[in-house]
């Protein structure tokens, strides 16, 4: 059989090929593979499967260099989600994915369907989702368009996750004008199952039926995968119809039905119909199983009339799954779906003949040889060259930037930084996410470095966090890649968890630009180095290129989603001071590094200088030290130093818990030889602030690991003052003043009413970094 054009199909012209995002060379490759001109349907199929989003054509060779192996890794990259063993026969499936482009043009549905997609990736593995996280990047909050995006994205994430009954427990929100034209919305899901329940999306068994289950198929989201594989432009808003529409209620039913289906033994494989819908799910399951498939699109349950095979194959209607059932079990599958008021229709079967064939009744509308549709996808290794402009930014002498007059009082600077939206409390955001459902959240969003979620039926718990400082990666991608992993590990360890594995979401610009591919190559290398040192293999993730607007590329942002394990829930640790009189200690060493800091950006409007160095071996020793001290029950709180440096970290330990702020007295005189602002606000890596009733024990453990540790002060009274002494300089502020800055900033910004000037700004895309008082 061979595919023939349908009556009414457009003629394949170079313009049509270009519209489908295929290069001339890619089209030639397609023709060679088929041995003839493709049909319109085939062109559509290939444009989706060979899109960057589905094919990883610019990233695959480098991703292969990442460490992916470990004794506890049950499933590495290549499946719907990675899976690790966590003891007691339990396994954890987890994955992070981007939904940047849809969220840029339709923030509510874009973010909501991002959450829906990542949930499906996890429950198709057989795991029940137990936690959601998200990593968000926006432009400055002073722009009304940013506030519109923030409100929509947050509501979209909340409405979807809340309805599903999966707690949203952690994440991060960063505001920087580098993201003004192209926000980043990365969602992560974590699920748990028994090891033997692990289900893979590998089609097998000649004659086994292929069944479409869940929601009916409509015309929404056609070419979503291709849309995600191009730069955003002023015309992107016109592509809003390519954004899918989510229905969390149907997804909740689909979740329950899918888990029941997987446990029933009636099926051999299941995969989400996500990006590129029916096309990618069927082709990928066939390729993994090295079998042929035949599908009849007229059997597909539809919700619109007159859909063409092209549309049915490429629809990204949400809340759908493709299942390969055991032959003869069709009725049992239907019965399970019917119990949840969902449809299940047999649309095809696994065949021995090595082809991927799509029929419309008797007519063959697309036919590809073997699994070459997936395996023949082109792979590129584009040129990589660092941008001279960025090198100049890095080499800028930031020491030469003079302090502002107000900085004579370090507490003024501290207050400014605490009110920077990137540092300030995200309570306004996280209160819109249900974090307590499932009665398993030990530490939710709030005063801790990572979330802690119990594993029911065991004494164990998971520590979860996402992290990435894109500014560091922008200025020095190798170092920035290392830091993203190291910071996630520190955060997980601060909550009491042993870092186990990561998933990553690599958000970059257009890979065909040499300076972008340079960033990608270097950041991947940096991540790999840190993963090796920290013993955290990469189990999967997602690459999102083309995060560019007319103003340029976003900061390269390889978001790390880390899973850590607590052997005993009692080791869960938060970041805030708890008891007056506890000693405050610093693990790690202060340095003179000021480059790439939030201080320079927020107080001086400067993005520049060299990011702090990251010694991955030292980070490993630091994590080991902290975990041993936590296991010894000598740690009352632990908080890592990141944005805003040591002074901000200490202040956060005082004020992060709005209900129970504590004062503190700190003496940093041993470092009086460093530049004061580098000591207080520089972002040297490998530092953790802990409080402890037994400082001698902590110092002893640190010494054994060869980690520098110093007692720097004492926790003060509730609602007291923060006092910092550095040599002859003494700075003091009431914690109520610091708390007001920290907790008040985002609510104040979000309640701003749009003005005429705002309207003017809304039409622009990118603005200079805004300093204090703007």
């Amino acid at each position, binding site marked *: 059989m061979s595919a023939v054009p349908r009556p009414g199909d457009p003629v394949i012209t170079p313009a049509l090929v270009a519209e489908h995002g295929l290069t001339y060379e890619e089209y030639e490759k397609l023709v060679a593979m088929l041995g003839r001109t493709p049909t319109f349907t085939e062109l559509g199929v290939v444009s989706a499967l060979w899109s960057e989003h589905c094919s990883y054509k610019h990233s695959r060779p480098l991703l292969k260099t990442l460490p992916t192996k470990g004794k506890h890794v049950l499933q590495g990259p290549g499946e719907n989600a990675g899976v690790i063993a966590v003891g007691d026969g339990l396994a954890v499936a987890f994955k992070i994915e981007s939904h940047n482009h849809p969220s840029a043009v339709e923030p509510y549905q874009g973010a909501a369907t991002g959450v829906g997609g990542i949930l499906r990736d996890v429950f198709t593995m057989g795991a029940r989702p137990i936690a959601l996280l998200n990593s968000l990047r926006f432009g400055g909050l002073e722009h009304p368009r940013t506030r519109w995006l923030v409100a929509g994205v947050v509501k979209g994430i909340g409405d979807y996750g*809340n309805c599903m009954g999966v707690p949203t427990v952690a994440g991060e929100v960063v505001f920087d004008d580098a993201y003004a034209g192209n926000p980043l919305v990365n969602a992560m899901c974590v699920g748990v199952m028994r090891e033997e329940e692990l289900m893979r999306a590998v089609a097998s068994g000649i004659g086994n039926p292929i069944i479409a289950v869940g929601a009916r198929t409509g015309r929404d989201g056609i070419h979503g995968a291709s849309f995600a594989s191009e730069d955003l432009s002023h015309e992107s808003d016109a592509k809003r119809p390519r954004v899918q529409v989510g229905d969390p209620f149907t997804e909740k039913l689909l979740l329950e039905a899918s888990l029941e289906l997987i446990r029933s033994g009636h099926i051999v494989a299941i995969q989400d119909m996500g990006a590129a819908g029916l096309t990618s799910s069927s082709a990928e399951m066939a390729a993994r199983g090295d079998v042929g498939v035949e599908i009849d699109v007229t059997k597909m349950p539809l919700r619109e009339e007159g859909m063409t095979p092209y549309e049915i194959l490429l629809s990204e209607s949400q809340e759908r799954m493709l299942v390969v059932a055991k032959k003869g079990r069709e009725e049992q599958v239907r019965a399970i779906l019917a119990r949840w008021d969902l449809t299940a229709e047999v649309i095809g079967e696994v065949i021995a003949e090595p082809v991927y064939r799509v029929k419309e009744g008797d007519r063959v509308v697309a036919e590809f040889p073997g699994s070459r549709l997936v395996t023949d996808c082109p792979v590129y290794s584009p040129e990589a060259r660092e941008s001279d402009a960025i090198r100049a930014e890095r080499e800028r002498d930031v020491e030469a930037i003079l302090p502002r007059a107000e900085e004579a009082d370090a507490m003024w600077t501290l207050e400014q930084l605490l009110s920077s939206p990137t540092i300030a409390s995200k309570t306004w955001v*996280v*209160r*819109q996410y249900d974090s*307590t*459902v499932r*009665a398993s959240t030990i530490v939710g969003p709030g005063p801790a470095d990572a979330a802690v979620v119990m594993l029911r039926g065991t004494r164990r718990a998971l520590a979860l966090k996402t992290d990435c400082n894109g500014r560091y990666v922008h200025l020095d991608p190798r170092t920035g890649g290392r830091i993203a992993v190291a910071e996630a590990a520190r955060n997980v360890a601060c909550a009491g968890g042993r870092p186990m594995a990561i998933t990553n979401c690599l958000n970059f610009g257009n890979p065909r630009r040499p300076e972008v591919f340079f960033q990608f190559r270097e950041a991947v290398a940096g991540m790999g180095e840190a993963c090796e040192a920290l013993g955290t293999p990469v189990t999967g993730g997602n690459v999102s290129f083309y995060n560019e607007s007319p103003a340029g590329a976003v900061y390269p942002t390889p978001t790390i989603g880390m899973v850590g394990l607590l052997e005993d829930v009692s080791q869960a640790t938060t970041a805030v001071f708890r008891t007056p009189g506890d000693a405050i200690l610093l693990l790690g060493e202060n340095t003179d590094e000021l480059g790439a800091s939030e201080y320079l950006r927020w107080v001086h409007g400067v993005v520049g200088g060299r990011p702090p160095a990251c010694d991955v071996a030292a980070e490993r020793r630091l994590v080991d030290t902290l975990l041993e001290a936590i296991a010894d029950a000598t740690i009352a709180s632990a908080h890592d130093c990141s944005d805003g440096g040591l002074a901000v970290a200490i202040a956060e330990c005082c004020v992060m818990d709005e209900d129970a702020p504590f004062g503190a007295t700190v003496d940093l005189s041993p470092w009086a030889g460093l530049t004061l602002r580098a000591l207080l606000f520089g972002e040297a890596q490998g530092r953790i602030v802990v409080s402890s009733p037994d400082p001698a024990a902590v110092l002893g453990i640190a010494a054994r690991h060869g980690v520098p540790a110093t007692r720097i002060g004492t926790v003060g009274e509730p609602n007291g003052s923060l006092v910092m002494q550095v040599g002859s300089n003494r700075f003091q502020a009431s914690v109520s003043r610091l708390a007001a800055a920290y907790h008040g900033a985002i609510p104040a910004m979000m309640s701003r009413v749009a003005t005429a000037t705002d309207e003017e700004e809304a039409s622009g895309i990118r603005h200079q970094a805004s300093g204090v008082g703007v």
Partner: protein
Amino acid sequence: MKVGIVTFPGSNREVDASLAAQAVGAEVVTLWHKDHDLQGADVIILPGGFSYGDYLRAGAIARFSPIMQEVVEHAKRGGPVLGICNGFQILCEAHLLPGALLRNASLRFASQWVTLRVENADTLFTSAYEAGQLIRVPVAHGDGRFTADADTITALEEAGQVVFRYVDRQGNPLPAANPNGSLNDIAGIVNDRGNVLGLMPHPEDAVDPLLGSTDGLGLFESLLSRVAA
């Protein structure tokens, strides 16, 4: 005590309710919304969630579920019914409780820990508490602003049917302590007969020190002590 927990399509805190009931030693049976059988349950819990996606209006479709006929009859016989969050909304829609629950005053979902004052410790559901006791429990809802006409509110207050009220940590009713803007800071009410309780907060998520509070246990212990007898 046998507790029947109804699962509607879209329920999502049925596991939490089940764990809480088991924590006080109750036997739990799961009741499917399409069934007509309470399986001999002494106490019925309508759990939190988004039954039928909260489409149309929170709780508006669930009240027509087959199982609700039996739940209503159980309530009319004086059997205890506890509606939490979405369950409270369903009880109002089913007219087992007066009033209605509107969109939060902030127009945003509210997920946070709150302090409740036990206003009436002389009910089937609260006898393990002291009157005036302050308890810490989470809320997680978008439509929790209890409202009713002035006469109903007055009648509820005078008859002691307001069982839980949002207060600050010191026990004072304050706008800032009320997560949804409900009238009179009402968090939970009981019917005039005293056998049907609806509340927006989640006592079932405050039953373990690891979760930050065990203050919710009292509600389940109260039921156990009265029903098991």
